[in-house]
């Protein structure tokens, strides 16, 4: 395993300062809630109602788990099908709830761990793609990023997800920056696998994004070997295993077996005309043109085309589901767009990238949000504006020398990730929250870009001064 670059003394000081800041803010939110300083925005437990509304669901579920544990024991608690972060928070609720209540302050140890992991991994990634100074500056920016900081103080799964995703990106980056021995390959592979499994537990729909990260890493690892003109067998072992397992799992996931419908049936079943149990959802039928009439599924091309078509439909269905879930939200975007085939999906890609990368667009920055109001929209507008600048700096980090494959990897993951978000999430608020992980990568690249530019500027000034000194010296030499 690549020795984790934890940490220089400056890095440790940064982490300590971040921890103190986080704890202070958690205490401040708790105090503001208890004192009812802003009852419309912060409730008694310190939950910020405008943007962390799903904290209530997780709070309720965590408290329910505490009751399950108290009444039926740890085995019943373990059997409860709840989300990972809800289970962790329920442990803290059981231990500290009687003292600090059942809110974010009690969950602070978990939130703090996630927050410090994000900052620590930013430090490490910055060092990996450039140097320790890049890591420290980027980690400082991430630590103070207002909306990310606020999200990490609630009962949300986002901080855990971001930390795990960065851990995965760090492991994949080390494929490109380190040369593994057998032992290192095994340990890195095991940690990568752990991170992937946890990510799938936290947000399973990101499986395609995870596979994308692995594929980008693998492609650049092959490129690294071509550039360096030496085989890196042990570096290849982990990626090959993970990609093979990922493709296999994705294939198995869509194979549901065979069932038989008997006609006539020997079972009458529930009467159609009678009262139905459950809640009926409106339903409609749509007869699509036979898109695969001209294809021969027996051929490889036919199967590939069929798969592509299904993938487009799948992405379209995820998008439709988001539309349905956010039907009453004020920040929906392109809700009428529906992907029925690969062509439709491909033609939407530029727009998806623009939404994933740049939304909320400037025209909406001054319009009050339905849930977050004017302050929320202004904050998101200001953060987006800063991200535009950071995005431009990030391009410098990749385009200008020194060229590093690890920087290219981070940019590829960011572009891929935000485009995927733009494709499947037709709601700007949701895009904003799901995008933090990619923004962290962009911030690291942006800081590297800033260093490249400042290096160029320094070089330019130095050259100018040298020229001027030379020009001033020349007549003296001639005179002599």
């Amino acid at each position, binding site marked *: 395993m690549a020795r984790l670059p934890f940490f220089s003394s400056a890095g440790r000081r940064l982490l300590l300062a971040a921890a103190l800041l986080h704890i202070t803010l958690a205490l401040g939110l708790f105090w503001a809630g208890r004192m009812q300083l802003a009852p419309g925005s912060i409730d008694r437990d310190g939950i910020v109602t405008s943007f962390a509304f799903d904290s209530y669901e997780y709070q309720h579920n965590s408290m329910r788990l505490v009751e399950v544990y108290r009444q039926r024991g740890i085995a019943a608690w373990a059997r409860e099908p709840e989300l990972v972060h809800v289970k962790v928070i329920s442990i803290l609720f059981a231990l500290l709830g009687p003292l600090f209540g059942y809110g974010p302050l009690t969950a602070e140890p978990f939130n703090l761990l996630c927050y410090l992991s994000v900052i620590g991994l930013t430090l490490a990634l910055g060092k990996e793609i450039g140097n320790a100074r890049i890591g420290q500056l980027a980690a400082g920016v991430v630590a103070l990023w207002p909306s990310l900081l606020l999200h990490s103080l609630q009962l949300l799964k986002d901080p855990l997800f971001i930390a795990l995703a960065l851990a995965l990106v760090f492991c994949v980056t080390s494929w490109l920056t380190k040369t593994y021995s057998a032992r290192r390959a095994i340990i890195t592979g095991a940690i990568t696998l752990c991170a992937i499994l946890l990510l799938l537990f936290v947000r399973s729909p990101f499986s395609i994004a995870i596979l994308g990260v692995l594929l980008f890493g693998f492609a650049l690892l092959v490129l690294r070997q071509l550039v360096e003109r030496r085989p890196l067998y042990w570096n290849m072992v982990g990626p090959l295993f993970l990609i093979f397992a990922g493709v296999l799992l994705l294939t198995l996931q869509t194979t549901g077996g065979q069932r038989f419908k008997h006609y006539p049936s020997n079972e009458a079943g529930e009467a159609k005309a009678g009262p139905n149990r459950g809640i009926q959802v*409106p339903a409609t039928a749509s007869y699509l043109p036979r*898109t695969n009439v001209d294809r021969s599924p027996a051929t490889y091309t036919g199967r590939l085309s069929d798969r592509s078509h299904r993938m487009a439909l799948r992405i379209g269905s995820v998008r439709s589901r988001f539309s349905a879930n956010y039907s009453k939200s004020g920040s929906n975007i392109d809700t009428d767009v529906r992907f029925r085939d690969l062509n439709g999906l491909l033609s939407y890609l530029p727009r998806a990238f623009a939404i994933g990368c740049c939304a909320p667009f400037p025209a909406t920055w001054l319009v009050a949000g339905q849930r977050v109001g004017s302050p929320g929209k202004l904050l998101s507008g200001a953060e987006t504006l800063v991200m535009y600048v950071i995005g431009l700096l990030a391009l410098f980090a990749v385009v200008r020398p020194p060229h590093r494959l690890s920087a290219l990897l981070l940019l590829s993951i960011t572009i891929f990730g935000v485009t995927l978000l733009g494709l499947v999430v037709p709601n700007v608020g949701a895009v904003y929250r799901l995008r933090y992980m990619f923004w962290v990568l962009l911030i690291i690249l942006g800081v590297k870009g800033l260093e490249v530019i400042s290096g160029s500027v320094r070089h330019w000034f130095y050259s100018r001064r040298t020229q001027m000194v030379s020009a001033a010296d020349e007549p003296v030499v001639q005179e002599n």
Partner: protein
Amino acid sequence: MNKVFKTTVVTLACLLAISCSSRTDRDGTTGRESSSAQGTPTASSTVGPGFDLVNFTGSNIQAVYLSPGDSTGWEENILGTGILDDGATVDIRFVSNETPALWDLKVVAPTGYYAEWKGLDLRGVSRVTLAITLIDEPTVVAEFE
């Protein structure tokens, strides 16, 4: 190995252990299937053509009923005791020498929500994709190919 590395490994291991007793943010991601004795064709019956039923609704489906349009009951649950996960596909085959022209279809989620379609023409249909869309309100669309 430094202490931070060991701490990282222990933290990941603890989280993974907790995850093993947790659910994903959707109810399952793998195609859980179990055999249904009723669904198995007998030696005398003929397995005819059928279609793929693809579940892209965002939730699992615990029952699929397919019955002729003129039938008064919904007949048997084709899935038996199995569950069709979100994203999964089940291949439904007709066991009969002849099939009616029009069918009624009903799918039920474990949460109790259900959707039904009446008078479907399944002749020549090779795939039925169920997805959620927004038509004034969340609606289940069955796309026939």
